[in-house]
């Protein structure tokens, strides 16, 4: 129980925070056994979609054409929607990690998870900015070098994979595999 507040607004804000937490926990545990299981499965969905991202991006950049027999427009559409869905899947995980668990370093696994997690939305925002600015620039020479987007996308996918390995995979193999 939180310490009794001495100020009316403090009591209100503490009550609101507790309401948010309990509403979140109640909503999650109607389907999943625990909030951690929920987080693990959403992270798994995000990393699966990140794999789709890597494959479709490869196709868009002229690679894996035999393996992925998709036209460029189809690959592009799938890439965009899988990216949107992946980010959507990470939002509740972000909520849980940032607002409930916070930045922690009790051991190497959690420390790596915390550090990489801190940077992932930054890399995402930077990648989106590069895409946006590339679209707005007409003169090709003024655009970002062509390697920037694959590097940024590859970094994001790698970071998601590291986050998944240090959380969901650990949970599934050390605690419990199931919803």
């Amino acid at each position, binding site marked *: 129980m939180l310490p009794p507040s001495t100020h009316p607004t403090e009591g209100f804000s503490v009550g609101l925070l507790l309401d948010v937490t309990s509403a979140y926990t109640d909503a999650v*545990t109607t389907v999943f056994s625990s909030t951690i299981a929920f987080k693990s499965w959403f992270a798994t969905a995000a990393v699966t979609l990140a794999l789709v991202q890597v494959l479709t991006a490869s196709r868009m950049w002229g690679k894996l054409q035999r393996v992925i027999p998709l036209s460029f427009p189809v690959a592009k559409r799938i890439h965009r929607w899988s990216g949107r869905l992946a980010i959507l899947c990470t939002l509740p995980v972000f909520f849980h990690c940032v*607002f409930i*668990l*916070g*930045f922690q370093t009790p051991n190497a696994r959690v420390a790596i998870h915390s550090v990489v*997690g801190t940077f992932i939305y930054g*890399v995402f925002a930077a990648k989106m900015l590069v895409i946006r600015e590339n679209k707005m620039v007409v003169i090709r020479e003024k655009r970002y070098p062509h390697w920037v987007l694959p590097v940024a996308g590859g970094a994001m996918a790698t970071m998601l994979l590291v986050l998944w390995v240090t959380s969901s995979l650990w949970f599934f193999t050390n605690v*419990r595999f199931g919803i």
Partner: protein
Amino acid sequence: MLRRFWRPVTLLLCVAGAAFALAQGRFLAPSAPSGSGAAASIEPGDAYQGELVFVATCAGCHGDAGVGGGIGPRLAGTGLSPALIQSRIENGAGTMPAGLVEAASEADVLAYVIGITAK
């Protein structure tokens, strides 16, 4: 050429900094309630770590989130005192053996169980 990167790099660092600041705040982190009954003799630890141990060790009998369903009694919402919870964790009761939870995890499990038993 590197001058072109200052905007995305600055954005990256700002967003990462904001995420770090929010994470340091842990605004919604559950704090173990003290309960209405007798206090435990140890300070409750990290409820999140306790949940991990509970899922692996206790949920088989007490059910997910302590809602019952196994051979162990329901814990959720029962309003057990922290002292009683600590005693059960350390000494067991009925078919529950003592020492199921390692000493290093006891404070964490205590924090989690106090949280789910709160009415």
